[in-house]
């Protein structure tokens, strides 16, 4: 598009334009930021938010600590053997339960199961993981829940390459922070709605 080439004069190695074929880059922005008039917003995300809060408790967990400890043990082993290449230290995540309907709905919406474009999007998505609720949810849950999540989000990628290329965010605090809080630097303006 003409507009795009005007804005990106040189080829940005790290920066890339929001992919118009996929939603991952902007999902958290269009669902959680921007201007909103409370009485007229038609998207309900309550289910997602509750799940996200629950998962935050799960993610900062024993599983993570064990994974670190195991990774470091393997480091020690390799150090002693003098090998230069470090082993793949990714711990396999534990199997987990299925996730609620709200998540299914949103992630289906993102991934559009029938679409072929989405497989390409996976790479970009993995690179940025700006995918907001469902994506961050999936990210956090993936660490502790595993294959079930991949099925739901249509991930298809192995955990093994995840640590190398994933630039993900996890579910959790930031969602809670945004709910209760600020636009991080932008003024919050509300008028009291007096319904008498």
């Amino acid at each position, binding site marked *: 598009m003409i507009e795009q080439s005007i804005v990106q004069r040189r080829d940005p190695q790290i920066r890339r334009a929001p992919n118009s074929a996929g939603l991952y880059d902007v999902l958290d922005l269009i669902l959680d930021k921007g201007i909103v008039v409370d009485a007229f917003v038609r998207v309900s995300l309550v289910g997602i938010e509750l799940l996200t809060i629950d998962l935050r408790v799960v993610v900062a967990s024993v599983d993570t600590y064990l994974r670190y400890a*195991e990774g470091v043990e393997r480091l020690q082993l390799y150090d002693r053997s003098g090998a230069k290449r470090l082993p793949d230290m990714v711990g396999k995540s534990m199997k987990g339960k299925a996730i609620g309907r709200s998540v299914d709905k949103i992630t289906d919406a993102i991934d559009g199961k029938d679409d072929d474009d989405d497989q390409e999007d996976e790479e970009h998505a993995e690179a940025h993981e700006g995918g907001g609720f469902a994506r961050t949810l999936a990210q956090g849950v993936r660490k502790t829940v595993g294959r079930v999540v991949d099925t739901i989000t249509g991930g298809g990628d192995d955990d093994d390459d995840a640590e190398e290329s994933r630039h993900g965010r996890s579910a959790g605090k930031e969602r809670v922070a945004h709910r209760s809080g600020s636009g991080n630097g932008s003024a919050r303006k509300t008028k009291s709605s007096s319904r008498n």
Partner: protein
Amino acid sequence: MGTYLYGITRCDVPVSAGKGGVGDPPARVRRLRFGDLAALVSDVDDDAVGEAAGVRGMRRDMAAHSDLLNRLIAETTVLPVRFGVIFPEDRTLIDQLLDPEHDQLLAYLDRVAGAVELSVRANYKEEAILTEVVREQPRLAAGSLSRRSGSRTSFDARIETGRRIAQAVRAKRDQDQQWLLQRLSPAARDVAVSDAASEMAVLAASFLVDRRKMEQFDRALERVNEEGGDLMSLSCVGPLPPYSFVAVRFAATI
């Protein structure tokens, strides 16, 4: 029927939206003027748009909403609206938003004039950060090999080791987050930082960057990537409409 709202601009700027709205087929996008403002809207059947349209409809409409605003931000200043805001009719949009919040909206337009949002993520490469942490503090890993797997003691001891490593990673993350912000903020008008929610996340932040300074920002990104790229993966998406810098809730005044 309803009036779907995408975004708000000054009334005197040329805007080449016209097609590509929500709904199937895509609704026409028109401008509703009030005072010095223009709202970009579509007439929609609110049973067939957004969440009401089901999973596929929602995906289609989120893409339309986002794509439209992405196209606009390349040419002009626009205040993006959250996905899924539908007023019963034009009059309600004027009475509930454009009129009561007219000056406030102009102030926001001033704040983001000529600027775009760039969304930046930096995450540690897990293998690399663990290596680095152990290199800096060898004691963290001390004794980890002497544990036999399977026993209760070794399980608890592993968790303790892991916990201490996690703590060390967090300390490094705080430092590295500051470093990234120091390197990237000079080219930005404003910064909105999110809490780093995962153990591996170093920075999740949006930068409000003047269009004319985007090259400067890109260069700063590249330098940061050169210096920190062994330890962390860096990505940036943009230009985006400045969602993070106009994240405002207005309550309806009924």
